[in-house]
């Protein structure tokens, strides 16, 4: 059954058909949300919020864009709202994330018996750098990078989701990569300087 057929069934009263849509698109929504919050539990909550919002807005879905495109827009908006709420009310966490360890982000926990502890620490540190650098990008650049790298969408698909042109998406991605590169390089220089001081 296509997405449109399932939506027609739901609007006619078959609420349980929505489970098919959820299971079909759950992974893509989860990955989008994960790209913004870097935390599995928060990403799960946002995924739930996205699907609930989508269900409540199904009547307004006109079919001009595909259902996945519409769902991506809801997921991106929900994620950005969450990020804005977090940054508004967590000033201390923001300072901590700049100068100390970021809270609430998932780090990989490899097997301590097979991996060198120093490598584990370096990997966790690198993961933090990258997540912080991604989080510090302007919203549009961050959205474009998340949709490109986490969801592996083409520039055309990203342009449709962001309601812009392919050229604008290409420019956003280029600027995002430049900013990301510069932030990571600056971060690495700061870390090396701190280690030499110690």
């Amino acid at each position, binding site marked *: 059954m296509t997405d449109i057929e399932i939506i027609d069934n739901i609007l006619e009263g078959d*609420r349980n058909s*929505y489970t098919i849509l959820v299971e079909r698109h759950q992974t893509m929504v*989860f990955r989008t949300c994960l*790209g913004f919050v870097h935390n599995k539990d928060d990403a799960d909550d946002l*995924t739930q919020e996205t699907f*609930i919002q989508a269900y409540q807005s199904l009547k307004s879905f006109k079919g001009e864009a595909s259902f996945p495109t519409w769902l991506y827009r809801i997921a991106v908006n929900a994620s950005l709202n969450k990020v804005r709420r977090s940054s508004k009310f967590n000033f201390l966490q923001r300072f901590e994330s700049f100068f100390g360890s970021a809270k609430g982000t998932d780090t*990989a926990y490899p097997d301590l018996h097979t991996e060198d502890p120093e490598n584990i620490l370096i990997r966790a540190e690198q993961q933090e750098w990258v997540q912080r650098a991604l989080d510090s990008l302007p919203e549009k650049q961050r959205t474009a990078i998340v949709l490109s790298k*986490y969801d592996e969408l083409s520039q055309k698909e990203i342009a449709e989701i962001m309601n812009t042109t392919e050229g604008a998406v290409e420019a956003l991605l280029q600027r995002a990569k*430049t900013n990301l590169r510069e932030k990571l*390089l600056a971060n690495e220089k700061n870390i090396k300087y701190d280690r030499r001081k110690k």
Partner: protein
Amino acid sequence: MNCELCHENSDAYRAGSLPHDLRIQVEEHLKYCKNCAEAFRMLNLAEKVISEEKEQESNPFLSTRIMAAIEAAETNIPQNSPVFVRILRPVVITISLAVALFMGIMIGNSSGSANNGSAVPLELTLINDDDLEAISLLSTE
């Protein structure tokens, strides 16, 4: 091959989709340009971190949770008080702060006016008693 071209082609180089000649040019440039080599290493790191992050999977029972939440919403079971959390609480906090500020100003003003009756005029505080001559000396009679 300059740095700008190298940056533009770095993604395709990493993915292995560059034509042979261009790939050789990028490799040569990365051998000699320290800045581009560092930048390439950083973006590689970012790609690696993102790939590891993407390996995480969502909760397998999420669809059950979503359907339960939808059913609860449709049967009007209140699950939280979003109106209070989102609107009333910030308003109450703002009003409380404004009232506290106003009362502080009022208390400060009232303690200032209580002292006004017994305040010593500035001219009198500047008088040095040791320099004053006895008034009887100034009198001619």
